[in-house]
């Protein structure tokens, strides 16, 4: 009896959970389906659910707007800024995790506090500085800004991972006469690779989706996908299939990365406050 009730309960919760999940995922699913429909089918009434699987929208989007230039701008900016941030952050996080001083906590909190500054608070000077230094609409300029924006998160994530590496191992290496750089390269880095990898993934996602600086500091040449997609907002024509194709291409790679990193996501996004 008890088992039957549990089974019924499980089935009921399963049905409910699938329904909620479907509703939440529906906008994404619908976009992907629409991207494979001819334009007429995309706005047909009643709605056509199964597309006729045409690829013309994808071809058209590339032909009309040089889609892949924007795609590679996004790749360059998000991967580039993340790698530079990691390069700067790894030594800092290592120092704070393994040579903590009474001030370490204050330094960490201060670093996090720089993340609290609203972007809009410094939009004006950043725009003018970019203009004066010829950085407007350049991939390098954006990479620089995104590096700075994400640096505190990168340091924090690495710090929370590094802190969990047992210090004894480092001491053993020291006993064996390992010098500091060897300590770093042969002992710490291999143990830290999983932490570094998930930091890398989360930051690529954050940088890929960053939609304030990327829109305001680019025009066309260096525009990543965020700025490119935003340009679809003005003309009111019905071109949903093409919009869907462009959107699908913009979200697909990061959706996959997101699924891969979802286990580490909570920790990274809450600065280690919820694990």
């Amino acid at each position, binding site marked *: 009896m008890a088992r039957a009730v549990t089974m019924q309960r499980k089935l009921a919760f399963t049905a409910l959970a699938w329904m909620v999940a479907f509703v939440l995922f529906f906008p994404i699913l619908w976009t992907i389906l629409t991207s494979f429909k001819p334009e007429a089918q995309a706005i047909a009434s*009643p709605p056509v659910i199964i597309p006729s699987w045409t690829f013309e929208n994808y071809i058209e989007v590339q032909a009309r707007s040089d889609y892949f230039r924007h795609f590679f701008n996004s790749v360059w900016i998000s991967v580039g800024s993340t790698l530079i941030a990691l390069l700067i952050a790894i030594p*800092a996080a290592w120092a704070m995790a393994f*040579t903590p001083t009474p001030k370490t906590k204050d330094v960490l*909190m201060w670093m996090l506090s720089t993340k609290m500054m609203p972007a809009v608070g410094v939009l004006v000077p950043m725009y003018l500085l970019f203009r004066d230094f010829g950085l407007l609409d350049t991939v390098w300029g954006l990479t620089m800004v995104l590096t700075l924006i994400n640096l505190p998160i990168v340091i924090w994530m690495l710090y929370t991972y590094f802190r969990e590496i047992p210090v004894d191992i480092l001491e053993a290496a020291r006993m064996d006469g390992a010098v500091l750089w060897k300590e770093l390269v042969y002992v710490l880095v291999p143990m830290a690779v999983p932490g570094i990898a998930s930091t890398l993934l989360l930051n690529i996602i954050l940088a890929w989706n960053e*939609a304030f600086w990327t829109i305001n500091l680019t025009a066309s040449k260096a525009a990543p996908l965020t700025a490119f997609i935003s340009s679809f907002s003005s003309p009111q024509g019905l071109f949903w299939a093409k919009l869907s194709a462009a959107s699908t291409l913009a979200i697909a790679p990061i959706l996959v990365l997101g699924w891969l990193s979802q286990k580490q996501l909570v920790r990274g*996004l809450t600065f280690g406050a*919820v694990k």
Partner: protein
Amino acid sequence: MATQHSRALARFMMAPSVVLLLIWMIVPLALTLWFSFQNYNLLNPGMQSFAGLFNYEYFLTDPAFIQSITNTLLLVGGVLLITVIGGILLALLLDQPIFGQSIIRILVISPFFIMPPVAALIWKNMLMHPGYGIFARIAEFFGQTPVDWFAQVPLFSIILIVAWQWLPFATLILLTALQSLSEEQKEAAEMDGANALNRFIYIILPHLARAITVVILIQTIFLLGIFAEVLVTTNGGPGYNSTNLAFLVYRTALLSFDVGGASAGGVIAVILANIVAIFLMRAVGKNLDA
């Protein structure tokens, strides 16, 4: 000796991060402050002069400012309400034994990875479009007049879109917190005859309190700066009906070229965010001691 040596090295290793963040924190903000006391319009480049508090007076007495503050608070409050309550319910549901849990998890978390302009455009066109959107189709099916979302309830429409993006975040964090609640505690309460509601109020909710605080604070930081969703859906309109503070500053700076006015708005946004930040830092800081 060795410690002194390693401390010097530690400082050396931290230097690049510290210096960069110091510059990033001070230079732009100092410039914003400086500009906020200047008469400076990009259309008259030669005419820069000291303005005193004029920009603040101008910005604070602009009717659009009051409305943008109200809209900012409504946007933050509305999204928090939906995502926190929805997130708790959803986390409780996903914490039950169900079939296909990992696939459901992936489906539920997905909206969080959608870049803001795409999320906004999908909702604007394919869901909320008054003629061809799915919502209009559903309304027609039930014989109702479709809602013209962005004309009739622009701010609410944006709240819905942003809530869709952030509900997964709240759910995921609350679910993680929920899963760290010991089964023994729940079972003990059940044995003592506590019903589901009491178990929720006296055991689960207090356990979630910390995670809820974190969700509220982190989301607030991001929600105060919502920009792309407004830009691609309503462009702040109709009128100023869906203009938030971030969008108003953008408008003043890059559409009216009023450097001074926009900077004053920026300073106000910084002050607003700092009030929230103080609370967040305390919550996160506590964890460092633990």
